[in-house]
């Protein structure tokens, strides 16, 4: 409380708070690389990163909600329904770009709906999205009668969007990766360099003080929810392009790894603080753990235990590299 003396003195040499997760990431990559040197081949690392890019993007955006002291349980299904609607409209004859816009717009609308409900029901977002998650999933199931959405028409599959994302166009770095990194820069600037971001962090830090400072807290909440929806919609459209199809189950398992990435990355659940870059590193840690276990060739029966132990290690590195303030629960 009053130990600001030390903090002030060492300000110039202060390590960024992302250091500890970065160390964990490097150690993990190092271990896998030492056991299987091919792991470290740039193409392998890039491909690995690409397949976790969408989850990473969502982890970057969920930081906005966590910073505001809220959690969205529905984003996986927003992603799903956005992708389904985009895919269906393309199959129904809409131009690819129109389908993309439909997907992102649908995601934004779903997010905004979450926001409006949380503001007007005066309930935490986690409770509201407990319901809307099922609603979005339900609408997705109905939209395509429980089937996968697979555009097969050449007009669609040969469209530059699908070819670029699906890897048919050769680039040194996967397109999706470039796009997601750009999004991360945007998200970082938005949260830490604009008034919108300041307002979010203010609401998360002290909602009553934020109201008294004249911040339109309801409007901001709805906007942040809509942003989460929009990014989930983008995620859905990217998924459609990247994988070329959407399953009814797509997105259903995303909640835990995405939130895990954000909190491993150092964003507390209690609001008022958040790190977009930490979230990116967190997503990469989740990715490296998932991939590393397979890469090293650990048997399926043992894989889960090893995963758990490595997660404990990754979060434990924080203890060693003591740069981060204690994280509130």
């Amino acid at each position, binding site marked *: 409380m009053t130990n600001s003396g030390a903090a002030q003195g060492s300000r110039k040499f202060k390590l960024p708070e992302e250091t500890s997760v970065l160390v964990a990431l490097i150690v993990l990559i190092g271990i896998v690389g030492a056991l299987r040197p091919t792991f470290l081949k740039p193409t392998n690392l890039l491909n*690995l990163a690409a397949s976790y890019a969408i989850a990473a993007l969502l982890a970057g955006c969920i930081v906005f909600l966590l910073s505001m002291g809220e959690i969205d349980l529905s984003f996986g299904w927003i992603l799903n329904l956005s992708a389904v609607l985009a895919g269906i409209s393309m199959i129904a004859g809409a131009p690819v770009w129109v389908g993309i816009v439909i997907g992102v717009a649908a995601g934004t609308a779903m997010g905004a709906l979450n926001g409006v409900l949380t503001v007007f029901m005066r309930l935490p977002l986690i409770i509201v999205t407990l319901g809307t998650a099922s609603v979005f999933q339900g609408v997705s199931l109905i939209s395509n009668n429980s089937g996968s959405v*697979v555009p097969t028409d050449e007009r669609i599959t040969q469209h530059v969007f699908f070819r670029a994302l699906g890897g048919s166009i050769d680039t040194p770095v996967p397109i999706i990766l470039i796009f997601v990194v750009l999004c991360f820069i945007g998200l970082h600037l938005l949260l830490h360099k604009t008034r919108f971001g300041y307002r979010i962090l203010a609401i998360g830090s002290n909602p009553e003080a934020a109201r008294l400072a004249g911040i339109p807290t309801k409007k901001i909440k709805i906007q942040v929810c809509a942003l989460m929806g929009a990014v989930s919609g983008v995620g859905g459209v990217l998924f459609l392009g990247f994988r070329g199809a959407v399953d009814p189950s797509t997105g259903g398992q995303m909640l835990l790894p995405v939130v895990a990435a954000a909190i491993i990355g150092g964003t507390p659940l209690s609001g008022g603080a958040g790190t977009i870059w930490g979230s990116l590193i967190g997503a990469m840690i989740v990715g490296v753990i998932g991939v590393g276990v*397979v*890469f090293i060739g650990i048997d399926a029966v043992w894989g889960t235990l090893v995963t758990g132990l490595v997660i404990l290690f990754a979060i434990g590195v924080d203890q060693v590299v003591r740069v981060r303030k204690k994280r509130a629960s």
Partner: protein
Amino acid sequence: PAQAKEKKLTIGFVVHVVGNPFIQQIIDAAKMAAKDLGVNIKVTGPAGAEGDAQLTAVQNLAAAGVDGIATSVPSASMVNGLNAVIKSGIPIVQFNGLGEGVNAPYVGEKSTQSGRILGKMVLDKIGGTAAKGKVIVGNCYPGFPVLENRQAGVLESLKKAAGVTVVGPSDVKVDAAANFAAWQGLLAANPDALAMVGLCAPDVESIGKVNKAANNTKTIGAGYDLTAGNLEALANGSAHISLGQTPFIQGYLPVYILVDSIKNKIKINKPGFIDAGTEVVTATSVTEPFKLPALTFKDLQAMATSKTKTRKYYDPVVKGYIKNWKKNLKPVSDESA
């Protein structure tokens, strides 16, 4: 002699979910094949069923340098990714879940056909085409392709009896406790139901428990998979029919195909289908495919826990149907025929 020095092949084996007893039977069979054929096998799969994580696992095994990969394909979104792996020169065989458009052979049941068989058996038990009354159908995971196929087959067979009305299909959930509660509710809502038909592994066991708890002996219970719990329900008479998907063949055959095709440079980068057969189990009879010797119910339960017994029982299939897999390769349209 020069070939003997060649490095041992490594086969990747990717399942859609770990920690599922039925899938584990497939894995065990795959490991038996690897042992028989003298190759390494790396088994992996996501903890929760998700196509994307599974595809990532396949891609990683490919990057890690395995020689061939067998994988189930539960999601259409894996197709493009798998084809890219195949294109890069690593052969793939699909099992258990078929990905439409994957350029690789598929080993599995005829899912629509197995649904038809189940529907017909249920119909036979409730009075054939003259049957009159309700049949409850439950789908534990709406949207899962194999389940949708089975469901279509079941409904097709049931339609043959004009007097049968189908209740559902209802979403009966995968989680054991929720599954039980759903079946319990369905029976309570329709106490006069002639039969309850599930499409997933936990259903038969749940239906059996529901029947037993309600002291209900008149409603036929039917479903899929020969898990220990399901067999127990059949044994005590609380459920009546369960179809098996011959996990031994679904695990053994893909590994065999991969090793055979790699060693003998057989191209397998085309869609195709090899039937793994359907096992039909009731309290009184066990019918195995491929003219295997008849089993008693006890034998079946014993085999569920003993790998050596299983291997021995299927030896004729290994030496015949499996060895001659090329002859048994059919167009993929046969799967849903």
